[in-house]
């Protein structure tokens, strides 16, 4: 291993010898790709005189005075290593050097970020990018003093291959597609026309300034050089824009226009840059007319080609993720790889890589997000954000460091000041001119304030710097001057404008963006409005934007989605997805805000009497009440919505799993993630379990109604859905499912819960899976899996889930007021009752009609759980625990017995208890119902009224609302 590593290191050292600045980047992907730049340790004072080797071959374009060298050092290390006799402790610096330095850099950058955010007040004033550049300057100074030479610099190759893609990938993938395309016209105009305008004007005017003598003689540059410089300095930089604008929070339209421009103008920059480079190489006088046309053609090819490459990869990515069901673990990897490949492929054909990556991200996002699991989604999101953030940090730090290197640049005041003035003026003029034209077509014109911000937001950044460093000093004589000017321009725009843009935005009262997410109403109405507008365009006989978008959506729905989306996903509607997302979000926020409350409430097991949780419960109730029923609703919805991917629940479960039955269960939790074959013991366990369950079921059955056929069929329908999802976690699927048909009694609510549960996605739902039978088919194998997830027999985690499902069901045996309410009232201490009452009544406004009918009804309405089950869902845990009343105990047992019957081990003891207690439970629960006055009646009434929707077939299932009114 060691020799191998050394070999590798040597190879890379040979290939990429001098490349210290790269140190920042490779961590992302570098070392594996053989791109690791070995560097002598610059920051270690002990090694100030690290060897300097020959400049690197391929990548070190500006490596002249860079310490390339680990070559010799490597050799030395190797000798060292193999040469002497055995040593107990060896100094293997050369072996770990590269990754070590990379890691140290990353650490420095990350710690710097932490430090900046220590002072709240400070960071609100000074953008992070400024601070990072300053830090870079300081670090650069330190290195310079220590080494007498600057070892680090923002290396173009690393920048373009690793740092930039991470940022662009993140930006593209999470680009708000609709916003982007809504403003596509403006974005394209600014990006193409604006950039061209800036480039030419800056170039020509600099040349004019040179002729006028404003720029010093020493700057040896002619028209072509200046045009080249103008091209690279004129492009608005995505990294800088992102860094600054993300902190400013201007409104979305403004942001997307500036940011979109900075991404799309890449094509223009690339082409201009390349064209001018070639012109400079052949000499201005040899350029033929045809070359100009070639330039134009090249622009079209570069931009359209880049876009196409991106879209092709987007299709591939969507298609691949369609089949990753069984390998969820590497789902995120596909996303990263293909998006990155889109970038590299575009680079390969010298197309616009940024465009390619952006469109790959935009295009694939919809399908990928729908295909991959929730966990993968989170992984993708956070990984991308982390990478992008660190890449950005490194870019700015290295920009700062690069500036300290005096040998690289030469100062000319005339050039610098002229450039600064020109880019600023032409940016402003360009923006105003284009906006004037655009406003004739735009529905929402960009007003003066917008224009000011857009002009001022034209930040230059690392792209310009990397491009200027890439210049060939032999051909562009004034390279050093250009480098210096670029650094100044970048610093000026990022630091000065970055600093001042926030106050400016505030002062101008630019509409800010709010970070709120759309509500379900907005989602609905937005779609409705789209349809309306499309229709009106049709009526008016106009083939406008909405017309084409409608066409696209049709196409997407009929072909693309079919090709790129999983079948299960394809059948779901976007609105439904949005609905789920909103619910989950709300639920999470509820849990976050009342987080410990809920958790502690849930965690309080019957065994640990928890009086402490009472006040907290009150809080929750109040909280929910204050926040309107919507929130209450959500809490319930978590349970039955497939999207019940609330990590919190999983967590709770794990906590429970850890705390309970540790001795027996522990080992299983280790296996749970992997697809390990069942051990002998497990199989035994399962058998025992199944046998026990069966007998328990029998006792149960007797007390139960027969279940409805209809429900069953319904369930199957769902089942097919769920099957697919859950199949990737076979072991998670709870074994007791096979009994489930037996168990699942008759009761509409039980079934209801089941239906909805069936849809839930596998990945999170340990809790939920456990509770409901998702896939009646899979059961046999999966028994043990259930163990780790659901072993908690306690009511605690399951309380929200199992609680509502089985409780009502018990109560339903006869009496209208389901036991839910009974329990709730019974268990909740007196002091809580008022709060509880209030929350109930707030929920209840709808339920005025007193339980008119209670046909058993399979339908699930999210709301149905709203009133009734909620009490059961969180109050019980705490209350149960405290009130050791028989009911409490029974309830917990009951839940254990039914929904959580997957514990195989303890079933022995518990089962007996359970089976004994089941019947008493039912009977005991029933009587209290009628007794309990309004308090308990309300929820149940509500519940009933919700439940009582006519079965699927019947025409107007939900017309109940209006009639009540």
């Amino acid at each position: 291993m060691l020799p191998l590593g050394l070999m590798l290191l040597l190879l890379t050292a040979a290939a990429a010898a001098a490349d210290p600045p790269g140190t920042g980047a490779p961590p992302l992907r570098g070392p594996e790709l053989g791109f690791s730049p070995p560097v002598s340790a610059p920051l270690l004072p002990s090694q100030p005189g690290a060897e300097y080797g020959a400049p690197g071959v391929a990548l070190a374009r500006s490596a002249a005075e860079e310490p390339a060298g680990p070559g010799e050092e490597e050799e030395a290390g190797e000798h060292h290593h193999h040469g002497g006799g055995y040593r107990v402790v060896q100094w293997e610096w050369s072996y770990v050097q590269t990754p070590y330095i990379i890691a140290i850099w990353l650490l420095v950058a990350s710690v710097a970020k932490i430090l900046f955010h220590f002072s709240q007040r400070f960071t609100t004033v000074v953008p992070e990018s400024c601070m990072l550049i300053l830090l870079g300057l300081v670090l650069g100074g330190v290195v310079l003093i220590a080494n007498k030479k600057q070892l680090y610099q923002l290396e173009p190759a690393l920048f373009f291959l690793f740092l930039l893609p991470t940022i662009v990938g993140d930006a593209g993938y999470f680009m708000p597609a609709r916003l982007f395309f809504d403003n596509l016209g403006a974005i394209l105009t600014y990006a193409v026309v604006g950039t061209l305008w800036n480039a030419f004007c800056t170039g020509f005017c600099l040349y004019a300034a040179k002729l006028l003598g404003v720029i010093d003689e020493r700057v040896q540059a002619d028209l072509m050089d200046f045009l080249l410089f103008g091209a690279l300095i004129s492009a608005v930089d995505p990294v800088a824009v992102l860094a600054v604008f993300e902190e400013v929070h201007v409104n979305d339209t403004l942001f997307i226009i500036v940011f979109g421009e900075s991404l799309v103008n890449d094509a223009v920059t690339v082409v201009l840059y390349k064209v001018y480079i070639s012109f400079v190489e052949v000499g201005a006088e040899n350029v033929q007319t045809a070359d100009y046309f070639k330039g134009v053609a090249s622009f079209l090819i570069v931009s359209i080609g880049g876009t196409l490459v991106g879209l092709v990869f987007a299709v591939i990515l969507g298609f691949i993720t369609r089949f990753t069901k069984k390998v969820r673990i590497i789902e995120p990897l596909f996303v990263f790889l293909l998006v990155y490949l889109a970038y590299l492929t575009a680079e390969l054909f010298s197309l616009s890589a940024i465009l390619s990556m952006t469109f790959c991200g935009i295009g694939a996002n919809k399908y990928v997000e729908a295909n991959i699991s929730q966990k993968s989604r989170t992984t993708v999101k956070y990984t991308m954000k982390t990478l992008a953030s660190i890449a950005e940090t490194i870019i700015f730090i290295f920009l700062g460091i690069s500036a300290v290197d005096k040998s690289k640049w030469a100062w000319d005041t005339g050039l610098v000041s002229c450039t600064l003035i020109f880019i600023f003026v032409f940016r402003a003029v360009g923006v105003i001119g284009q906006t004037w034209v655009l406003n004739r077509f735009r529905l929402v014109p960009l007003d003066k304030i917008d224009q000011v911000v857009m002009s001022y937001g034209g930040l230059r950044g690392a792209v310009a710097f990397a491009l200027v460093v890439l210049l060939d000093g032999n051909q562009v004589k004034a390279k050093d001057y250009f480098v210096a000017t670029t650094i100044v321009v970048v610093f000026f725009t990022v630091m000065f404008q970055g600093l001042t843009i926030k106050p400016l935005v505030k002062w101008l009262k630019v509409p800010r963006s709010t970070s709120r997410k759309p509500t379900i109403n907005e989602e609905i109405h937005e779609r409705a409005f789209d349809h309306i507008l499309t229709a009106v365009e049709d009526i008016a006989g106009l083939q406008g934007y909405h017309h084409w978008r409608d066409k696209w959506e049709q196409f997407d729905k009929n072909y693309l989605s079919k090709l790129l989306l999983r079948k299960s996903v394809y059948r779901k509607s976007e609105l439904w997805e949005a609905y789920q997302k909103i619910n989950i979000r709300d639920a999470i926020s509820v849990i976050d805000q009342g987080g410990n409350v809920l958790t502690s409430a849930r965690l309080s097991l019957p065994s640990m009497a928890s009086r402490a949780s009472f006040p907290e419960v009150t809080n929750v109730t109040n909280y929910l009440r204050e926040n309107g029923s919507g929130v209450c609703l959500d809490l319930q919805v978590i349970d039955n919505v497939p999207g019940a991917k609330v990590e919190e629940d999983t967590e709770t479960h794990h906590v429970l799993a850890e705390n309970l039955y540790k001795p027996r269960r522990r080992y299983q939790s280790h296996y749970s993630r992997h697809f390990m074959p069942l051990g002998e013991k497990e199989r035994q366990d399962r058998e025992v379990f199944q046998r026990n369950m069966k007998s328990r079921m029998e006792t149960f059955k007797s007390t139960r109604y027969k279940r409805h056929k209809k429900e069953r069929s319904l369930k199957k329908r769902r089942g097919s859905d769920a099957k697919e999802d859950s199949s990737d976690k076979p072991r998670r699927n709870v074994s007791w499912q096979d009994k489930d048909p037996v168990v699942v009694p008759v009761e509409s609510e039980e079934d209801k819960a089941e239906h909805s549960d069936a849809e839930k996605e596998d990945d999170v739902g340990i809790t939920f899976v456990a509770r409901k039978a998702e896939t009646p088919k899979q059961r046999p194998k999966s028994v043990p899996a259930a163990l780790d997830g659901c072993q908690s027999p306690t009511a605690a985690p399951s309380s929200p889930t199992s609680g509502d499902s089985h409780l009502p069901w018990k109560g339903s045996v006869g009496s209208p007021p389901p036991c839910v309410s009974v329990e709730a009232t019974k268990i909740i201490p007196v002091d809580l009752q008022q709060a509880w009452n209030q929350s109930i009544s707030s929920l209840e406004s709808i339920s005025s009609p007193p339980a008119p009918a209670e046909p058993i009804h399979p339908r699930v309405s999210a709301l149905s759980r709203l009133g009734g089950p909620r009490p059961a869902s969180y109050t019980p845990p705490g209350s149960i625990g405290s009130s050791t009343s028989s009911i409490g105990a029974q309830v917990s047992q009951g839940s254990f017995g039914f929904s959580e019957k997957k514990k195989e081990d303890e079933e022995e003891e518990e089962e007996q208890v359970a089976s004994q207690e089941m019947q008493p439970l039912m009977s005991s629960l029933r009587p209290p119902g009628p007794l309990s006055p309004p308090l308990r009646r309300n929820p149940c009434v509500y519940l009933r009224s919700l439940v009582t929707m006519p079965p699927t077939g019947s025409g107007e299932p939900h017309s109940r609302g209006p009639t009540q009114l």
Partner: protein
Amino acid sequence: MGSSSSSMDHIPNAEELMQETGFSAAHLLRLYERFEFLDKDQTGELRPEDFGAIGGLALNPIGDRIISAFFSPGQETVDFPSFVRVLAHFRPNGTNRTRNGTQQEPVNSRTRKLKFAFQLYDQDRDGKISRAELLQVLRAMLGIQVTEEQLQSIAERAIQEADLDRDDAISFDEFKKVQQVSPHPQTPTKETPLHPTEGGR
């Protein structure tokens, strides 16, 4: 467009309409041409079938509602002035810069646009979107992709969210509020709407 200024004469009450709706002469003319094109029988009035003949509209999930929005209650036909008046709702109000939707009067004001949309939901015109009405729209828009119970939960949720006075229905005020919470330029309506009026495109 400009060439046929003479045909302005054909349009009844052109001046008044322009005043009322804010359409320019060119816009009005173009709309008139369109109107005549749709009016296959040359009766000077459009019947629902005429609208139904428009290709794209047949595919539109809520096309029926939009068509019926052109007809005032009890009427079987719509004449040109009414036609234009309805379309005037969709005139962009960008010219008067309505980021905050401040102006009240004109037919293309934010409120009027919202009202128009609201009435597409509110089929029984009782000033409220009941759950059933919302469900109908949802059902139309979502088609078969979603099961009935999913629809219901969505509708339920939407009503819960918007319903401030707890009458289990969304009144116009509530409807308006829902839309106003978001100053999002890109979210629904009025800011992004089309311009049936921009003839040339």
